[in-house]
């Protein structure tokens, strides 16, 4: 498999990476794969979080005009999770409820990016302000 070769490197438990172009979406998926493997997520949990990260990082790049992803491997009592924040300084989302509706799209997508990735994670938080930017924070627990 193409991505597993890089899984030997250990990533820091917190960090950030730029999301400026399409290539960064691929890098983001690979980073989240390494982090979920490091945190010993099951394959299905890995796949869900990577897929959510792919959707959210694309939103940051395409709709937010670029930004960054921050990550944190979280230890809360006995449970381990991975928290990801996707932040941009783009136009913001005027109608959050609408943006979270299945099938609604402002652009070329299928309209499942935000609403779908919300279903793939345990915690989902969206902060946005028109003209200031958007930050979507998600977490998945083992």
């Amino acid at each position, binding site marked *: *498999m*193409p*991505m597993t070769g890089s899984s030997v490197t250990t990533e820091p438990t917190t960090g950030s990476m730029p999301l400026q172009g*399409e*290539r960064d*979406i*691929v890098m983001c*998926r*690979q980073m989240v*794969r390494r982090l979920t493997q490091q945190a010993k997520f099951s*394959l*299905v949990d*890995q*796949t*869900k979080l*990577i*897929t959510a990260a*792919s*959707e959210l990082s*694309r939103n940051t790049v395409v709709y937010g005009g670029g930004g960054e992803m921050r990550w944190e491997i979280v230890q809360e009592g006995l449970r381990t999770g991975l928290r990801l924040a996707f932040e941009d300084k783009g136009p913001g989302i005027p109608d959050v409820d609408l943006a979270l509706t*299945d099938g609604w799209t402002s652009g070329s*997508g*299928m309209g*499942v*990016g935000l*609403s*779908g*990735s919300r*279903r*793939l994670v345990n915690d989902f938080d969206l902060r946005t302000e028109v003209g200031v930017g958007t930050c979507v924070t998600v977490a998945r627990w083992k």
Partner: protein
Amino acid sequence: MERIPILRMGRALLVTIQIDLQDQVALQLQDDLSAQIERTGAKGVLIDISALEIVDSFVGRMLASISGIARVLDATTVVVGMQPAVAITLVELGLSLEGVRTALNVERGMQLLTAGFDADDGIQRDD
């Protein structure tokens, strides 16, 4: 930028996606496949995604639109080899790949396509 190779086998075109797809590469594949169907008169397209570790809405849309374009060009598309974790995630994401024919593996996908070719031949012989 990488390009996904398209192989021709009889009346079918075969595509094996083995890299983590950048969006532009997925779009390029869509264009390349459409052009190849037109040029070769292929009746079937088999896309093997067994090496794909995720299918997000972008790739899902690409698979659905390849399927649709191929149908209009009189070719059947079969997507094969989806990993179970990918299938679970895809459905939860909200994509059911409606209109996309799928098969468990390459062998079954080829059987499906070949059966379609034979049926076509039967119609032609009856004329």
